[in-house]
């Protein structure tokens, strides 16, 4: 399941997580974001026991988006122990996300 994170629960779900976290920063109007939505959902199923997969709507969570300097979407941030460990900007094949995530597990 892809968890929905926002300005109020981001710290709780992402920063304090004991597992690696992948956060998809997206917006409803963004075509490339919608292209990777099914990929993110697939990864969330495949990694349900190893990692936390989340998505954050930048329009409704401007605080988080500003804090992490999200300048364009989709941007996917990978967190480990509360810190940004890796980053992927733009719609890319599933293997790119999986490779980055595997490196943190």
């Amino acid at each position: 399941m892809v968890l929905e994170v926002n300005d109020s629960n981001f710290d709780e779900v992402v920063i304090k997580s004991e597992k690696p976290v992948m956060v998809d920063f997206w917006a409803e109007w963004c075509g490339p974001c919608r292209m990777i939505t099914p990929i993110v959902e697939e990864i969330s199923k495949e990694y349900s026991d190893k990692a936390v997969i989340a998505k954050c709507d930048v329009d409704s969570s401007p605080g988080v988006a500003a804090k992490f300097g999200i300048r364009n979407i989709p941007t996917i941030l990978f967190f480990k122990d509360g810190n940004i460990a890796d980053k992927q900007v733009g719609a890319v094949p599933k293997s790119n996300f999986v490779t980055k995530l595997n490196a943190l597990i």
Partner: protein
Amino acid sequence: MTICVFASSSSRINHEYSIAASTLGVLLARSRMDVVFGGGGIGLMGKLADAILTNGGTITGIIPSFMKDEGWDHTGLGEMIVTPDMGERKKRMFEMADAVVALPGGVGTLEELTEALTLKQLGLFKGPIIILNTLNFYKSLIDFLEHMILNNFLRYEHKGMWEIADTPEQVMAYLKKNELWINDPRSIAKI
């Protein structure tokens, strides 16, 4: 989401055009849309780039090497791709684009805009194409496109390939609407 913007490199134009280009830059940066453009440092290209950079946005320039040698490039960009020629420049811009926006411009801008329309007609580019019609700059072109349709050089359905925006705010509304035109453009490409 990457927006390809085509625009003039002339600075000897009505101030209203510059204001519209700057406003669009601010709005694109605030919406976190990536921009790719022709890499020019002057004219509407320069205004757009400056506004994006000032507002924390991301913009990539793609410029042919001879233009860089002439010193026509914007020197403050985070990323500048230098191509061997004009054709390669345009090809790279289309490859990166999810949508195209044409600001007022000269024959270079016109050529880029009409290639975008051609690619869309043939199903080779699927994103929105938005014409920013500041001060009704593109009236003659819009009339000419209608003339093509009336005389069966274009189909009526092809009118759906472009959107006309009077203001930068309308450009943003069209970009965010993100509607697909038709599924199979080639089925109507032949007139």
